[in-house]
């Protein structure tokens, strides 16, 4: 009963955040026009119609998929590492994806052999980002199997972040202005302008990730009780681990390639959901983080587009400003943290 109330509330919030995201932007469109266009039919003002349907609606759909996908990654990783501070950004997956993309964008400009052959757009970029993310994740998993200390894992993530930024800064020093600019723009994150096949592709990726994660919920619950308990419950730990690695690598890689590195959504949302729902049952948490991630991304994007102003804040900066304080707060109340 309590759960259904919580979920109704979440869905209500999602609806509100969606309306807010579509309704607000740098151009003021009166709410009655927004409602008319959404529920009745095309507006007389064609430019408003374009803004709503060609720009804002795809951006809203992108934000939902990105938020849900990253939050799901965070949940999967927190369960895999049994570490409340895990998330695609904190553990260096986003950095790995960035490294892949920087190799692609900047590498060809400084004449690294081979990179010039790969098309520097679309599929090539997604592949580079996914490879980078999976590579880092494999490294983190290898560390996790050697070192049981969870803090060590975070340190490894931090170090990977440092290595990435070092490599990237060497590249930026060597490469030409054009590539540099292209890369810098990518790192700021972009939700708008993702259209057509790319938007469908993003949704298919996230939906596939969700479908593959649902059967893992039971394993995730069991692993919470410790590896030996999970084993005694008949959980195939190897398969479970590899599934999580594959899903999070593909999701983080794909999402990061398309919209740039997005910080802290993956980390913060699962915690907020655990606290909100007062549960650590992953059968409930999976749908909850999907909705919660979408809500957080939609709200952050609404703030980023700064209603009524022609300037935009980088989306990555906004999610950090919202997400990082949540991380600090979590560390403070860590004794009480779930997981």
């Amino acid at each position: 009963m309590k759960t259904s109330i919580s979920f109704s509330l979440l869905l209500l919030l999602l609806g509100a955040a969606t309306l807010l995201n579509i309704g607000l932007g740098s151009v003021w469109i009166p709410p009655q026009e927004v409602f008319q266009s959404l529920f009745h039919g095309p507006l007389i003002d064609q430019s408003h119609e374009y803004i709503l349907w060609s720009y804002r609606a795809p951006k809203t759909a992108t934000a939902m998929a990105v938020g849900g996908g990253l939050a799901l990654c965070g949940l999967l990783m927190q369960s895999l590492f049994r570490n409340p501070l895990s998330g695609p950004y904190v553990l260096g997956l986003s950095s790995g994806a960035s490294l892949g993309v920087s190799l692609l964008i900047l590498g060809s400009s400084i004449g690294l052999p081979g990179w010039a052959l790969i098309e520097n757009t679309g599929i090539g970029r997604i592949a580079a980002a996914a490879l980078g993310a999976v590579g880092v994740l494999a490294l983190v998993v290898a560390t996790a199997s050697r070192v049981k200390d969870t803090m060590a894992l975070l340190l490894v993530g931090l170090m990977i972040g440092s290595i990435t930024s070092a490599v990237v800064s060497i590249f930026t020093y060597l490469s030409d202005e054009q590539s540099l600019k292209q890369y810098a723009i990518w790192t700021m994150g972009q939700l708008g302008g993702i259209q057509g096949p790319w938007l469908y592709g993003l949704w298919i990726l996230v939906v596939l990730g969700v479908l593959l994660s649902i059967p893992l919920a039971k394993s995730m619950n069991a692993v919470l009780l410790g590896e030996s308990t999970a084993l005694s419950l008949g959980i195939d730990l190897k398969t479970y681990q590899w599934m999580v690695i594959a899903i999070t690598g593909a999701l983080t890689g794909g999402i990061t390639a398309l919209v740039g590195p997005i910080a802290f959504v993956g980390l913060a949302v699962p915690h907020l959901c655990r606290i909100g729902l007062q549960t650590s049952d992953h059968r409930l948490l999976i749908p909850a983080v999907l909705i919660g991630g979408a809500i957080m991304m939609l709200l952050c994007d609404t703030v980023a587009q700064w209603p009524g102003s022609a300037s935009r804040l980088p989306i990555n900066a906004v999610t950090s400003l919202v997400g990082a304080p949540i991380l600090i707060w979590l560390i403070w109340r860590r004794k009480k943290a779930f997981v």
Partner: protein
Amino acid sequence: MGAIVLFLANMKTFTRHGCYFIHFILVVFCTSSLYGQTYAKGFRWGSTPEGYKTLAVRSSIQPEKWTSYVLIPRAQHQKIIRAKSTYKQVISLPVASLVLTSTTQIPALEALGELNKVRGFTGLPYISSQSARKAIEKGSIKEVGASGSLDIETVLELAPELILGYTMDQTPGFVAVLSKAQIPTILFQDWQEQNPLGRTEWIKVMGVLLDKETEANTYFNQVVDNYERVKKIAQRAKTRPTVVSGAVYQDVWYVPGGKSWMATLFSDAQADYLFNDSDQTGSLALSVETVIEKANQAAFWIAPAQHTSWREMKSDQPAYTAIKAFTQKKVVTYALNKGPTGGVLYFEQAALRPDWVLSDLVYFLHPGIMTGYTPHFFNYTTP
């Protein structure tokens, strides 16, 4: 030097959107010579099999890719409708309303008397042109991205007939959104031209788009004539003074490459540019030591990036005193000449008026040769 400042200016105009998909329309049926194009390498004219005129623009990221636009006079409705069913980017001529993204586009429009067609611009304070500033005050030119990046919603609301893009090569996603709304974008790559007159030649593109072809050609030919005239004057000089350029930014000295826009101007001004031997068309990133070793005897230092004051340069980088031109205060900068809202005039006008840049250089490098001339952009740095 132009290159490093361009780089800094670009940092300011970073849009915050990645780029994932590029919609290039095939083609280029090249008949550029028909239009007497000689210097610019970034655009070319042609025609479709049906006989429509086309403009093709080179991508700055992938130089082998060209985007092409079909240009049809507004009066020929039927042709426009037919062309739109076959081609993605159809532009009706003359274009009645524009959104601009780079200050270099302003003086060209002003020269053609078409500033009244401008509806929006990214980063209004950068504009120095008096008539453009009046239009801004009147509210007829609107801000479409205060931070220098194009705000898509504002543009969609203004609904211009055409956008002359600049940094949008990086955000093809946006180009796609705009073209869906029937607003084509031409990526205006004048700044990519390495030949000084090549940048000026882009005025011909404006001329065709705005039905001011004759005026554009006349203007261009005048600039070419004047450039050649000054170049000849420079040849009378008895010396070829050595020149260093650029400045240190975070421990890296960015100097114009040997094949860059600026290097060509140095050479035409009869200067011995000390980094002429490099093949770079952009800027070179060198260590301070390398530059000092090579250029410590330089007679002139031209265009030290954003610097305007000798003393400020000295405190910024004491190593500058190793350069002879610096100790002898032969440092010439373009950054002192600013418009009413702080935009550097050189950035706005130099692309269209390389003849003025050349005249300025000759004036400073060979005193006495340019009699009765007042420099347009350059000054000695303040003490």
